[in-house]
């Protein structure tokens, strides 16, 4: 099957998720267009992680459909499913690196599993990814326990990028990083998008990231995506939670910083 890469990489229609009687999402509609960086925000417990897991296929929704590149997930065959999986890279919150392997081996895991590249080439490509995410070359042979939090995220990103995915999921990529590290990470994502031309969905609480790199912001509130639009439009949206979220002092500081950078 040829994946039609011009179609939206991910689309959710009428999703309902619930645990027992506890409904998390109700009639949730959401779409990410090709090539854009979408930030997903929502209060703690609003179901961001559940949505992410649902989109990734780690959890089946109780109702509704997920489409990848315009194709229903249920209709995909095993082979097609795997092919689409290879087009999706995930950076988990703590990096989720395999602790028994070096950074290079971690990056090689997806390549080993899904390609027939020679071992030597895989090693070299892994080193290239390490370089691309801005890690020093020596980190290739280090174990995750030897890395700092920021380096773990970069290494996790390198693994997510191992197969040149079309779609990148980032779960709180800048959480736990210092402002300098967080800015650098934001710029890294922008730079890599330029080179690799992928689509990004990031769950984030980092207002600076939202202002600096997101093309659109999706707000998960009241069990559905209330609005998914450019930041100025989201800021005008009339909802108490949105007003409070973007109207707070932190947001204003981030906004002025963000406009300074862009202006």
């Amino acid at each position, binding site marked *: 099957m*040829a994946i039609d890469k011009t179609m939206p990489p991910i689309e959710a229609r009428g999703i309902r998720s619930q645990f027992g009687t506890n409904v998390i999402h109700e009639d949730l509609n959401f779409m990410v267009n090709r090539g854009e960086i979408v930030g997903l925000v929502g209060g703690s417990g609003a179901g961001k992680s559940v949505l992410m897991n649902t989109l990734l296929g780690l959890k089946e929704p109780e109702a509704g459909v997920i489409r990848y590149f315009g194709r229903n997930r249920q209709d995909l065959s095993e082979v097609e499913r795997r092919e689409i999986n290879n087009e999706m890279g995930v950076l988990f919150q703590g990096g989720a690196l395999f602790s028994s392997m070096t950074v290079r081996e971690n990056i090689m895991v997806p390549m080993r599993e899904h390609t027939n590249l020679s071992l030597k080439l895989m090693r070299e490509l892994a080193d290239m990814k390490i*370089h691309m995410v801005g890690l020093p070359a020596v980190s290739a042979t280090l174990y995750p326990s030897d890395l700092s939090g920021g380096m773990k995220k970069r290494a996790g990103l390198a693994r997510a990028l191992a197969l040149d995915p079309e779609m990148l999921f980032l779960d709180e990529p800048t959480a736990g990083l210092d402002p300098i590290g967080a800015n650098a990470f934001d710029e890294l994502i922008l730079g890599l998008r330029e*080179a690799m031309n992928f689509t990004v969905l990031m769950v984030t609480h980092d207002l600076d990231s939202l202002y600096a790199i997101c093309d659109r912001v999706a707000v998960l509130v009241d069990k559905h995506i209330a609005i998914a639009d450019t930041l100025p439009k989201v800021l005008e949206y009339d909802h108490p939670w949105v007003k409070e979220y973007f109207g707070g002092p932190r947001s204003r500081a981030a906004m002025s910083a963000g406009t300074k950078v862009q202006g």
Partner: protein
Amino acid sequence: MNSSAAEYKISQSGRTITFRALGDWTRDNANSLDMDLIRELDDLDYDHVKYDFSEVDHLDTVGAFLFARAIRIGPGQRHNWSVIAGNEGQKTLMQAAADAVLGRPPHAQRQWYDALIRIGQATERFFIEVMETLGFIGQFFVVMFKLLLTPNKIRWKSVVALIEEIGFNAAPIVMVLSFFIGAVIAYMGANLLATFGASVFMVDLVGVAVLRELAPIITAILLAGRSDSAFTAQIGAMKMRQEIDAMTVIGLDTFEVLVVPRALAALVSTPILTFLAMLSGVFGGMLVAWLGSADLSPILFVTRLQDSVGIAHFWVGLVKTPFFALIIAIIGCRQGLAVTGSVESLGSRTTTSVVQAIFAVIAVDAIFAILFYQMGV
């Protein structure tokens, strides 16, 4: 898969080569391209590469990396290069690949040197391990005696909970195992001694073997497998989740909170477990003596046991148990506290812990055997 083929054409003029790429330069085509490319580039002599990407359909990082092969000379060195035709994305990708081939560190092959280093490191680690264990034991006794002077500071609640965990819960398995061992000894004795017509001596055999050696050793080894590993895993997991650090910061002494209660619980549990193991071991022997071919009645068995197996054997067996208890508790806790951040180290520390504990138990038992032999007990 579905991607179409990739090709390249290299043309040379002077010291400059023009690298014209066509088709899909993606990972599906990478393997064969790579081989040819390396071979062909090796034969050329040049110092500038011009890339023409105008006929490239798809390009990913693998393809870009292959392009960059043309400009790599050695670690930290590359030829000049330029892209004469190609879109922005391709140029950016090419730039990333070109930087990546530059940044790779020199990979030195020093096998003998590395082997020597590893031997040195292993030796150093061994001595450090010994020193740290001794230090740990010293610290343990200091804290222990300090606490014995102020018994109200001992965490009795966790001591009792741990006694339930490592003593009470282990009783059934210890007794069953010891029962089998006693029975096996009795069977062996019955067969051997029957040839001399001396079946009644199997009572001595079972009594001495079980009371003196087997019951304490079986109990200790079982505890080493069961509780020692649990100590290491529990404390190691706490260490990984920074609970130990939190304790230290709050002002709790890890020895006081974690190590001493475990040691006390082991000190209480081990003799009791050993006693139970002795009972069931002798009982197993008695059953075999009665129901097996030797046909010794239980009354005869018990009388013979009282007459010929001195109480000294019982005490010899029991006196070793506190030492075993301390070995198990100290090694378990020490390895647990030595766990570092990784899952790997938790696993290896748990393994080390069990191996060391069993080794130490058997070694100490051997020392006791020599000691008692010299003393004539």
